[in-house]
Structures are given as C-alpha cells and as structure tokens.
C-alpha cells in the first residue's frame, strides 16, 4: 500500500479498475438480486411457480450433462490416447460447434426431427411431438458434448505421460493403467470439466426456448416473465435462483481446480508420447468418433443445406436468395453489429483483463483477494441473469444519450472478463518477478515496466482473452436478448427471431453467415498473430 502511495498514477489506475468492476459487474447483479425485495421474495416463493422450472432445470442439467460428458469423454479419450486415423479431421469437427451459437442445434433438430422433419416426416411419415424434456436432452447433449470434449481433452492431455510409462513399465496393461493411474490423477480436472459443462447446460437459454414448449426451465421462465408478462420482480427472483445454482456449481468447480479450466481458445502444450494402446481400442475409438462426427456433420450440415436451398426439405433447388436476405436491411446491420460489437468487446476485454490481472497478481495492496473474486465471478453468472442485470441497471431514461450498442459491448466485455483475466494471471505466474524488478531497478516505474516488459511477454494471454471473448460474444443469445434495440440487433437475435417465425431459409443462412464470419475473423486474426492460436479448451 505504501508503494502505491508513492506511485499516484498506479493508484489512480487501480481505483479506475475497481470503479469499473463495481459499476459493471457488481452493481447490475446486486440490482437484480435486491429487486424483488423481502416481501417480493416471500410472495414469489409462496406462489410456487418456480418449483416446476427449478425441477426441470435440475433434471435436464443432470441428464444433458451426463450424456454430454460421456460422449465428450469418448471423443477426448480417442483424441488423446488412441492411435486412430483422421485426428485432424476430428479435431476440426470438434471445434466447429464452439464457433456457433449453441441454440442453432435446436433449429437443426427441428428440421431433422420436427413435425415436418426430414427424418421423422420425410423418412418415417410421422409428426411426433418432440418438444419438452427429451428434445432438450437430445439437443443439449449434441450442443454441449463438444464443450465437454474440449475440457476433458485438456485434462487428459495434461496427465503425466511419464506416470503412464512408469505404470506400463511395471507391468500394468493399458486398461489397468487407465483405471489406476490416469483416472485417479485427473479426477479433480475431470470433476471440474463436468461441473463446467453443467454450468453451460444450466444457463442454456436458446435451446429450451426454441424446443422446450411448455417444458420451462429457469432461464426461459425468467425470459417469458419479462417479455410476456412484464413481471420484472418475479423474473429477478427466478434468475436469482438460477444464479445461486450456477454459483454453487462454480464454487464446487473452483474447489476442484482453482478456477482454472475454461473452454478457451489458446495454444496447447505438446506432451511426451503416451504408451501405445491396443489396435482394437484405437479401432473402437475411430468408430465412435466417426459416429459422433457424423452426428455433428448431420446437425450442422442440415443447416448449411437448408441455407442454400429454396424450401428445405421439400424444395431442394439451390439458391443464394437466403443470403441475399441476410445481407440486406436490418439483417445486414445485425451481422455488421455482431462483428463490430464482438471485435470491440474482445479487444477491450482482453486488454482490461490483462491489466486487472497484473494489478492483482503483482500487487501488494490489501483487498486483492476481493477483486480477484469479482473478476472471476462472471464465469458463474448465467447470461440471462447478466442481461437482466444490465437491463435493470442501465436501461434508464437518463442514459438515453448513450448508444445502446455500447451497452451490449460493455456487457460482453465484463461477462467475458474471467477468461482473459485467468489467462493473464496464469501468464504472469510464468514470468519471474525479477523481470519486473529488473525494469524497476533500471529506473522504470511499475506501469512502465508492465508496458515495456510484461505486455510484450504476455501476448499469449492477450490472444486467449481476445479470441475467446470474440467467439463467446458472437455466439451469445442470452446476454443480449434484453439489451438489443432495432438499431443494435445482432446475429444471434435475428436467428432466434427467424426461427420463431419459422423462416428456416433465413435462419439457417444467417447461422451459416454468422459462423462463417466468425471463422473468417479468426483466420485473419490468426494470420495477424502469426498462427499462434489454436482453438480448444485450456487452463486459462
């Protein structure tokens, strides 16, 4: 603290960071939590309308997480351990879903298995009721198993190959090594991966909203209470319940892995070769991955085919008419907005997170622990809650002079802070403090040393923060659903609206355009960063 007093600029910078965190992370959330007031909570809890959605949320989270993790584990095990062919192909297929809004799986599902779906109606001539629990379960399994795969692959690839070599050397077979060495050693990481997947599933808003029907979960109930009934008090109470669940999962996750694992976009360290697995196992892995990849290709391929055909699936004439629709008017604006908002938010988020990470990791001032907690907390906040928070706190008449696009950008910046922040802290841990001290002893102030010495060395952390925030900003629906205005609408909102309008051509073309735009942006960025990025899960 004394050293801070001697460097007033540093003190001011710290105060600015604290002020921003309090304004844009703490304040909106507190607004939501306290909105109903004590009597509001009592009335709401007595009303009992929350019991069904809570039960549904818990039920579907348990089911979807279980299946997503199982599939993800198979995929990850195959990628990390087996000697199957086509690994680069499977890697790309496993990454693509991360670049798309998760809820487009629901759209594809409707096209495939809906009342007029190509499988259900086209092949079997049936129009089953596919809304509700089983629909959500299936869709979330497909939408989130790639996330689980990335997280689990990260954990498995970090397990110490030398231990496995040693166990094999002592006479254990591959199966035995896996159960007695690999699994016990990666248990905390796997636990954290499962809980992280559970948080993604729990806060999923788009899929249940599209195919849930009368099966309401907490995020969709919060949404419909506001958009359908204008009942803000109840919505705040519902989302507070959701927040508590997510926080519970998140706290458990942090206890397991110290809050390090995220689905992020970063370089992955290579490891020493692992002991060979039997040929039969590799073959089984290959078949399993082929099946899962086929499923993903079917789901996303359906969207692509639909985007390029007149009326899917009845009229399969090739057309680019849907893309013309996407490129014009409000739709074109929405795409442009998505790009602008996401790039700006990603840049600010990465830089701010790096600076905040430096203040916390290298600082000696009191209260660092509290700031650290606040900076990682948004990872536990469901997007719908975050959106409602910003709606409550900042959708005020006296702020009308502010372009509403900034509100979306700011929400994206702070919702995604944890990724860049954790990457910065992890990066800083790799840099010996004597480097900062060397700069200081040569006459550079702490800020100057940060700029000259640490920032150039933390390019990796900046890239992780930027790319991951960008991808999450492009794909989020729940954060922005309460914040957009006609002029500041974004791609995910338009896709969601087009699905609701049953404009399948438009919705799918929009999806393809959105994903394509994200890929192009990432390729350009990768070229600028001289190819030093890779997509996947990592310890930030």
């Amino acid at each position: 603290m004394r050293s801070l007093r001697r460097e007033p600029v540093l003190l001011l910078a710290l105060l600015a960071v604290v002020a921003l965190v309090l304004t844009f992370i703490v304040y909106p959330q507190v607004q939501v939590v306290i909105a109903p007031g004590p009597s509001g909570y009592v009335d709401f809890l007595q009303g009992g309308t929350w019991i069904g959605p809570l039960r549904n949320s818990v039920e579907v989270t348990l089911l979807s997480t279980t299946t997503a993790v199982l599939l993800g584990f198979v995929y990850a095990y195959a990628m990390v351990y087996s000697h199957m062919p086509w690994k680069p192909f499977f890697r790309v297929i496993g990454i693509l879903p991360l670049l798309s809004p998760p809820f487009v799986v629901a759209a594809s599902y409707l096209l495939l298995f809906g009342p007029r779906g190509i499988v259900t109606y086209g092949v079997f001539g049936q129009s089953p009721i596919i809304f509700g629990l089983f629909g959500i379960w299936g869709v979330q399994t497909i939408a989130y198993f790639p996330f689980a795969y990335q997280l689990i692959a990260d954990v498995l690839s970090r397990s110490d190959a030398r231990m496995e070599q040693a166990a094999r050397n002592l006479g254990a077979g591959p199966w035995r090594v896996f159960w007695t060495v690999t699994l016990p050693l990666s248990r905390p990481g796997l636990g954290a991966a499962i809980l992280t997947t559970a948080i993604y599933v729990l806060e999923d808003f788009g899929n249940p909203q599209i195919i849930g029907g009368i099966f309401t979960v907490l995020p969709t109930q919060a949404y419909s209470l506001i958009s359908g009934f204008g009942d803000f008090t109840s919505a705040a109470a519902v989302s507070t319940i959701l927040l508590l669940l997510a926080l519970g999962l998140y706290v458990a996750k942090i206890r397991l892995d110290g809050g390090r694992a995220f689905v992020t976009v970063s370089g992955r360290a290579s490891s020493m070769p692992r002991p060979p697995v039997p040929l039969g196992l590799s073959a089984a892995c290959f078949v399993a991955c082929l099946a899962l990849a086929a499923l993903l290709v079917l789901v996303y391929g359906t969207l692509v085919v639909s985007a390029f055909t007149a009326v899917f699936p009845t009229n399969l004439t090739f057309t680019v008419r849907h893309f013309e629709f996407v490129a014009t008017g409000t739709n074109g604006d929405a795409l442009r907005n998505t790009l602008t908002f996401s790039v700006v938010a990603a840049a600010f988020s990465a830089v701010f997170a790096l600076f905040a990470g430096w203040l916390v990791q290298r600082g000696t001032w009191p209260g660092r622990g509290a700031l650290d907690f606040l900076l990682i907390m948004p990872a536990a906040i469901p997007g719908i809650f975050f959106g409602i928070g910003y709606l409550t706190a900042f959708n005020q008449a006296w702020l009308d002079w502010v372009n509403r696009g900034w509100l979306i950008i700011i929400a994206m910046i702070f919702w995604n802070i944890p990724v860049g922040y954790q990457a910065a802290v992890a990066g800083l841990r790799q840099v010996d403090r004597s480097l900062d001290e060397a700069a200081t002893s040569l006459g550079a102030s702490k800020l100057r040393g940060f700029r000259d010495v640490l920032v150039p060395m933390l390019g990796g952390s900046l890239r992780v923060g930027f790319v991951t925030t960008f991808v999450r900003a492009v794909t989020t629906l729940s954060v922005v659903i309460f914040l957009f205005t006609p002029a500041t609408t974004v791609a995910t909102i338009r896709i969601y609206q087009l699905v609701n309008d049953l404009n399948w051509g438009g919705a799918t073309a929009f999806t393809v355009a959105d994903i394509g735009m994200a890929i192009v942006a990432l390729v350009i960025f990768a070229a600028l960063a001289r190819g030093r990025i890779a997509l996947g899960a990592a310890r930030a």
Partner: protein
Amino acid sequence: MPETAHLRVSHVTKRFGGVTAVDDVSFDVPKGAFATLLGPSGCGKTTTLRTIAGFYDPDAGDIQIGGRRVNELPAHRRGTAMVFQDYALFPHMTVRDNVAYGLRVAHTGAAERTRRVRETLAFVGLTGLEDRWPSQLSGGQQQRVAVARALVIEPQVLLLDEPLSNLDAKLREQLRVELRTLQRRLGMTFVYVTHDQGEALSLSDWIAVMNAGKVEQAGEPWEIYYHPRTAFLADFVGAVNLVPARVSELAETTVTVTFGTHRAQVRRPPDVTVNAGHDVLLCVRPESFSITPAAPADRNGIALEGTVARRAFLGDTMRYWVRVDDREWIVDQPDPGAASPLDGAVSLSVRPERVHVIAE
C-alpha cells in the same frame, strides 16, 4: 571503514508476517567500496539487499544513499541498479536493447545512448553480440549482459544478488576476478550478496556476515577469516578447528589456555573481554598447522602428537583428519605433491599468533 558513508543502513528491520527476516541491521558502506553481505540461506542478506533496492519497505529503520534518506523513494528512483541471480534479462529484447533499457527510460539522447551502450558492452567484453537474443547467449555472457545493463545507467549503488551462483566453478572464478577489476576501475559502490565465503573473501573490501537476520560480524575479509567473533562465524567462513579450552592466565597481549592435557600461550583477542577461569573456544584454521612425521619443532605454540585417521586429496592441498586423544583435528598440507602422503603417527604444530580465541 572510515570516511563518510555513501550507503547507510541504520537499524533496519523487516518482518514477513510473524517472521523477522532482518532484525535491526546497521552498517555503512563508503563510496567506491565493494561490500558483501555473506550468510547462509535465510539469514536475511537478500532481504536487506532488496530493502536497499526499494522492493521491500522496512518496518523500521532508515536507508540513506549519498546522505539522503530514500525510504519514501520508490524503487525506480533510487539509482540502485540490481544484478539478479537469474540475470532477469528481458527475453524479448536483444542484448543492445537490454543494455539500453535504463537509458531509454531516463530519456537519454539517442547518440549518447548508443555511445554508452557500446562502451559498456566493450567494457564487459561483449562487443559483437549486440544483436543476439538472451536465449542465444551462454550463462557467462548472460551474466555480463546483466552487469552491463546495470552499470550503464551509472547507479549510485550497484546491487548484486548472488550473480555468480548459476555458473560452473571455473567460470565463476574467472568472472569473480573480472567483477573485482571492473569495480576497481569504475570506483563504483557495490553491494554484493552471496552465501559463498570464497567469493566474499576474494571480492570484498568489507564483509558483513549475517545470521538469523542480524549482522554477526563486519569487517575486512582477513579479519573475518582469522578473527571470527563467534563459533558460527568461524565455522561458516571456511573449515576450522574449534576446540573448547579454559583461560588460565592473562597477560597484556597474550592469554594462556588449557585444553585436555595441553597448555598454550596465544594472542589475546582485542575488544573482547576474557577473564581467567572462563571457557573459550580456540579457533585454528587447518592451513595454519604444519604437519610432519617427526617430532614437533616449535614448542612455543601448540604442539600435538596424533595419528592420521583419514585424508582427502583436494588438489592444491592434502587434508588430514588427525586423531589426538579423543579429538580429530583438520589439518591442511599445502603442495601435497612435494612428499608422499603421511600416515600413522604425526606431529602437528601451530604458531601462537595463528590461534584465535573466541569468548563463549
């Protein structure tokens, strides 16, 4: 050391939680001196150095540089460039940019900067390596860059934190000589931290031996080595024979001590009170003995008869462990190639002025 102090550390205390790392430490370093803080790991020497640098705030006490109190000065305004144990070279800068960094921060003009960087690199023998990256340099070269980077800004005090400990023995000795020569030529004030007593003895004008956060003794290397004030010091700085004895007689400049069945008249230690009847420790360096197979020559000091228990060939010396009664003495014989190794019964003798008395 007389003259006015350039660096003055007075009553500095530094605590970490409940642990007192530096406990009321005071010392003065005159301008242009090579001062060394020597001690085992955890003795507080590095903490003292880092407190001088401004990386730690002292809990009590003052640091003065050039007559000015610097406690409230942030680390980057103290003019205390530091050479780190792991060199801490900026990996994303070339050798030239590393060395130029401090000048750049100080807004030194480009022409002067270029000149000073060139001169300093020549000074440490790195001309021609300007465009290398730190990762392309050997350990010794990295160390020289680190020194050049600190020297070039002409600090008030240059702080060195075990700068040679990551190098192999041969290079360490070579750089030791270079560092000493460099410091002499520049007349710059150096404060050097090490746990290596050989380094401390060969480099320093002045040594402070630290233990458990306190300065146990400070003085010139010769003084520290031959006249340690405590058993810890005697033992820490080099190999030593420490033998309990009792003072039997006191004279103006000598004391007579008895140990076992032996009796000897040795130099009376200055500025330490010893009284007749007191228990003391005799401190004899192994190289102070002469060892012969025959009967002792000099009855004036300590003469002992014993048998060789073990011996170790150290290259420049032969070290013997000689059993005398129930005690083993360490004895070094210089130039061991001159005669065949001794075995069996030997005689030891040491001149009285080579025996130092430590008051317990």
